[in-house]
């Protein structure tokens, strides 16, 4: 190898990198710019702009929306706190071995199948309108209560599948090692399998929580006055859709940091795995 070779190679590589960055930038600008041009030059753009992007209405509605968003946050936090243990319980029920546990396995499987099959909004409707309609004494009627129940039931089904994937990703030799030392099935699950499984599925779990966070707006349909319901009220009062756009912005502001945090966790785990280090 000649002494001059490495710099030439490096320069070539950086040229290639620069060129592909430039191509990406230009093509993105052209596509987005083109789309914007089409929208802005649409025959009815001025009216749509007024209906969806009205500055004064935006600023006027924002405080109400943020106040209402606390309801979404409460929904989300309570449901999440319930989903984590309930989803785990379902996953463990589905993983019980042997013929003795067939009924429990079947029950958990049916639950997960049904709640993943039925559209969330239908679950919310049935629980929010149907159950209070029965007027059973002692059963709460508040929409908020049934909203939490509906979101918990729906998301537990998804989250249990995430847990299950994590549990199954732990090699059976880990369980064999734990059991060979005299640990019970439950102790092996609790101290050996789950700690490894949960660490592996933290990113997909957070991903499901981003979904849950957004789906809190669905409970507006059973009369919970949360951010989207508030936006609809503002929209009706002003004959203007800007509050709905404001809802989108509020969710973006809250969700993107969570998404970045998830990415960071994934990257950290990859780094650790690559270093062969602590996991």
């Amino acid at each position, binding site marked *: 190898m000649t002494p001059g070779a490495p710099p030439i190679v490096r320069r070539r590589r950086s040229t290639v990198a620069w060129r592909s960055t430039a191509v990406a930038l230009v093509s993105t600008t052209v596509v987005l710019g083109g789309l914007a041009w089409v929208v802005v030059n649409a025959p009815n753009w001025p009216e749509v702009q007024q209906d969806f992007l009205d500055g004064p209405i935006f600023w006027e509605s924002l405080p109400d929306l943020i106040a209402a968003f606390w309801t979404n946050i409460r929904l989300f936090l309570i449901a999440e706190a319930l989903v984590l243990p309930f989803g785990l319980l379902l996953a463990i029920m589905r993983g019980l071995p042997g013929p003795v546990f067939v009924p429990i396995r079947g029950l958990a499987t049916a639950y997960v199948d049904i709640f993943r099959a039925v559209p969330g909004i239908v679950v919310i409707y049935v629980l929010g309108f149907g159950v209070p309609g029965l007027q059973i004494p002692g059963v709460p009627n508040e929409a908020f209560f049934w909203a939490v129940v509906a979101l918990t039931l729906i998301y537990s089904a998804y989250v249990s599948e995430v847990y299950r994937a994590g549990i199954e990703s732990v090699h059976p030799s*880990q369980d064999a090692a734990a059991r060979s030392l005299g640990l*019970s099935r439950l102790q092996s699950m609790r101290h050996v399998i789950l700690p490894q499984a949960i660490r592996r599925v933290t990113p997909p779990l957070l991903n499901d929580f981003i979904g849950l966070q957004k789906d809190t707006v669905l409970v507006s349909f059973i009369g919970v006055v949360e951010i989207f319901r508030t936006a609809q009220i503002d929209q009706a009062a002003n004959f203007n859709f800007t509050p709905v756009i404001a809802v989108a912005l509020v969710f973006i502001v809250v969700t993107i940091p969570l998404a970045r945090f998830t990415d960071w966790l994934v990257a950290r785990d990859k780094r650790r795995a690559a270093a062969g280090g602590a*996991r």
Partner: protein
Amino acid sequence: MTIPALRIEGLHKSFGDLAVLRGIDMVVEEHEVVCLIGASGSGKSTLLRCINLLEPIDAGRIFIKDDEITADGVHLDRIRRRIGIVFQAFNLFPHMSVLDNVTLAPRKALRLPREQAEADATELLARFGLADKRNEVPDRLSGGQQQRVAIVRALAMKPDLLLLDEVTSALDPELVAEVLNVIRELAVGGMTMVIATHEMSFARDIADRVCFLDAGTIIEEGPPAQVLRDPTEARTRQFLQRIIEAGRL
């Protein structure tokens, strides 16, 4: 006459249509070291896993001292505390420190207080040259160190019987000796052991008795000097011939 540490009668085990063990009879006296030799697939590992009840058996009976561990209604977890097993691939818990790997079972299965479990574990680790590794995670250790930790983890339960399943097969050649030395030390200390191994010279040094497995039965057994040097069975001779050609004896 003393009661043997381990007694196996007519053990059969199949995986689906594949009969892996076809009538194993075996007795291991207390403080005896028995090496199982034989080709891959001859049933050595399965036999060890059956003794530890990690595999349900199809037929036969297994006794530890006076207790039949294959009887209906035995407490599996309690039986397993008396029988340690060390695996080829170490199977350490990667999310725990060395110390926690060793103390988990004493703390959870024997309900020892943490301080006592940790004191015992620290002493054991020191005995096997691992004192400075107690706070490391397994991934930071060499294969030889990991396997020694796995042996310490099994010993921490003070088992009556230790099963070793090709414990040096996954190790780089230069790390084999440190693990074999640990086993040698245990043999000197009187630990009853059943060892599945491909290390013939090690078997010759350490074993009180060698059992040659072929297709799920023990076809020849005896003192290592006799079985390894002057086998009576043709299949044992063939097997040893291949081992010698591979330069392993």
